[in-house]
């Protein structure tokens, strides 16, 4: 199944990826990473991710990889 991998230590929690995901599969964690940012994670229990790459295209920290 298509999916994405988010490197949480590099994420700065800007949330640009959250907004572009057509299925709203990305959410911000309440905990912080070592940089002090609330990072984002993929929450896709129903495996809806299509590997469309929109989130990765938006990510300014280039911490999203997409697999299809």
């Amino acid at each position, binding site marked *: *199944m*298509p*999916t994405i991998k988010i490197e949480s*230590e*590099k994420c*700065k*929690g*800007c*949330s*640009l990826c959250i*907004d*572009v995901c057509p299925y709203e599969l990305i959410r911000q964690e309440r905990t912080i990473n070592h*940089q002090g*940012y609330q990072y984002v994670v993929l929450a896709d229990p129903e495996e809806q991710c299509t*590997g469309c*790459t*929109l989130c*990765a*295209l*938006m*990510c*300014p*920290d*280039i911490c*999203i*990889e*997409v*697999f*299809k």
Partner: protein
Amino acid sequence: MKQVFAKPKALNDEIMHYCPGCGHGVAHRLVAEALDHYDITGRTVGVAPVGCSVLMYDYFNCDIIEAPHGRAPAVATGMKRSRSDLIVFAYQGDGDLASIGLAEIVHAANRGENITVIFINNTVYGMTGGQMAPTTLLGQKTTTSPYGRNFNTDGYPIRMAEMLAPLEGTTYVARMSLDKPVNILKARKSVFKAFEMQINNVGFSFVELLTICPTNWGMDSMESIKRIQDEMIPYFPLGVFKEKETEDYI
């Protein structure tokens, strides 16, 4: 399962120092993808400006030199003229390129130097803490236009792509926006084209990228994206302003 999106090889694994949401990351990625695509990382030299992206040498796997504030096109000219086999690109912000370095960019463009210039326009000085830039929009409040930019005292926001396109020396001039995936894909195409122009010795190529600066705009990322769409694009229209097929002279 196949990886369909990965970090370009021309970038290393360092965590970038840019603020959350900052457009430099995506702009760096597009440049790096072009270096990967044309397989030119090993013969490319980047020229870093003074501004937030002065530290870009920490992230690229190609050679990079730091230029004095605004002088990147002159430094790039010196390099390209001396070693025409190198691919030389300058990466400049709006203060660096459109203010202190206006003479250098105009003349490098007018001479038709065979270099590529990536211009990051976020309408504000970032590194120094949010002062007015030459591209700051009318009415926009910054730390040195605390009452909003006023054309009577501060002049108008400068449109660089439109200024450079009519110069005979330029061969490719475009303005793109990094506000949404579809525009980022167009910007990617444009950056690729700009490097291709140089590789084919066609001449001076210039891509202006509209980006967000949530920190100095005092907005969150989503509000910032909306500002590009509602305020910046209407004043700074997107598109390719000039594209020559081959080098030609009049």
